[in-house]
């Protein structure tokens, strides 16, 4: 079953083709870094315009790379929940056009399900349910127990900022450009992670919640107090604090719930030192850790196509009336991980 997946939830325009949820036939991602770099962050109106301009080329490239045409598609999956509304609507409109013109099912997806399923693509038998998924990116930081297809238990979440968002803020403060994650990681490699004693909020609290706003404030104040501060040391110390928080809470949740398989997902999963630190802890406890290939960690269309296969088998397709929503409950149980007002 060949599924075209489309994701335009933020600033990457992406499309991919996946065969039966496992075999990635293509995965094309066009980033908009250049369009947003001078603003130090993503400008939603510009992102929408860039998506509209690129979406046809990206879809065509995904089909060409997969060596198929529109007539070979069996379904089209698209992220329509969670992200920037102005961006989501472009991908949704494109996917509906493909579904309408090809007379194939449309599968509306929650963006986070794509990230979660990126761990299952090609290795479903290695990673049976249940497992723990730490999904961490610019818009969210969650610890989910994945019990079955599209069934999740929310075990931990951030009270305030997402981890990836804090990387971007630090990069902006230090003038490292956008996106912040890779820039901070690169500079951190040259610094001393013990140079600054940044706070690790809630790390000793016996709960599974994260908080990054205090860390963000402390790092930015440190830079503002001492403009001559060694940026590499700041980045290394900050990155270590984030890693300590993520790894400590993840392992604590895994132990408490008896989950010995831990999956990492989302853009921050690209962070090399985080992967190494979590892997080291997992090995010490004889747990297994799973991380998707690098191009499945970023926002991408293939993960939507892969997840779409499983969800289509679970609940069938959607009507052409589905709409984009910036915030939406997750999975069949309707998990809510943001303040209630966000869902109105």
């Amino acid at each position: 079953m060949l599924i075209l997946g489309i994701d335009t939830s933020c600033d990457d325009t992406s499309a991919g083709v996946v065969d039966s949820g496992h075999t990635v036939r293509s995965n094309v991602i066009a980033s908009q870094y250049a369009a947003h770099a001078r603003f130090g962050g993503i400008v939603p109106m510009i992102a929408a315009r860039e998506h509209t301009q690129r979406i046809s080329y990206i879809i065509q490239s995904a089909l060409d790379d997969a060596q198929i045409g529109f007539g070979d598609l069996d379904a089209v999956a698209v992220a329509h929940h969670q992200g920037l509304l102005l961006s989501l609507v472009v991908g949704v409109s494109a996917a509906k056009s493909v579904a309408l013109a090809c007379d194939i099912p449309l599968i509306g997806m929650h963006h986070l399900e794509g990230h979660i399923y990126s761990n299952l693509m090609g290795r479903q038998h290695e990673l049976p349910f249940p497992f723990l998924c730490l999904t961490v990116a610019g818009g969210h930081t969650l610890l989910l127990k994945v019990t079955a297809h599209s069934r999740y238990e929310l075990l931990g979440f951030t009270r305030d900022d997402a981890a990836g968002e804090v990387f971007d803020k630090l990069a902006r403060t230090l003038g490292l450009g956008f996106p912040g994650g890779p820039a901070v990681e690169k500079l951190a490699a040259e610094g001393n992670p013990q140079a600054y004693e940044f706070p690790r909020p809630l790390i000793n609290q016996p709960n599974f919640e994260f908080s990054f706003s205090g860390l963000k404030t402390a790092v930015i104040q440190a830079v503002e107090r001492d403009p001559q501060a060694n940026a590499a040391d700041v980045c290394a110390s900050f990155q270590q604090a984030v890693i300590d928080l993520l790894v400590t809470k993840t392992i604590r949740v895994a132990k408490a719930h008896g989950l010995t398989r831990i999956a990492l997902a989302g853009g921050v999963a690209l962070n090399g030192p985080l992967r190494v630190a979590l892997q080291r802890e997992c090995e010490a406890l004889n747990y297994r850790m799973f991380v998707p290939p690098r191009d499945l960690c970023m926002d991408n269309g293939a993960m939507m196509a892969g997840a779409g296969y499983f969800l289509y088998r679970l609940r069938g397709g959607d009507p052409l009336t589905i709409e984009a929503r910036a915030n939406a409950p997750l999975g069949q149980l309707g998990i809510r991980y943001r303040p209630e007002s966000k869902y109105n």
Partner: protein
Amino acid sequence: MLQLLIDTSGPYTMAAVADEGKLLGECTVQGRPAARVHELIRLLLMAVKTPIEAIDLIAVTVGPGSWTGLNIGVTAAKVLAQVRKCPVVTVSALDALVAVHHWDRGQTWAICKAGRGKANYSLYARGPALPGLESGITEFGALRDRLLQDVDPMVLEYGQTFRPDLSRLPAVNYACRERLPVEGMILAARAAAPLHLEEVLALTPDYLQPALAEQDAQTV
């Protein structure tokens, strides 16, 4: 030649099918509608008993108008055309507004708000409107001064933002429309040249205001 016409530029979303300029069917919906455009098209094609494979040309409004609505409509049109390999013609919402209008006493100005005190405008000659004489985006105050100096002009506004500032105009010289006339879209589409496939793939809404987006840049 069967044409599918799509308009998502304003508070109404419209899909229509025409054959050589003759309207075969139209579906219009009001209220947060752009996301419904595909369902409208599906229902319309069923109503006129026309499979999508029979469509020879797609016409779509590319602005000015709602930022989000236009992104949805233009994306819908370009991807439909990409799959069906049919050409696209782009239509200015202001041309569609004016195409069914006839004003013999002077020039016609079609205007529409562009945000931050600016207005999109198109100017048309006396009599049959199309093609227009000039179009652009400008400070509304400068535009108002210019059109009020015109001899017996007609002002057609898409929406009704600027009417209070145009109170010096006699009522007969001003009209506003909340939705585009489908006949106007058909006429404007017939006056436009089809785009090549490469142009279709790169098509974006014609906001006439890219600089505004950058002035207003709010990052997330």
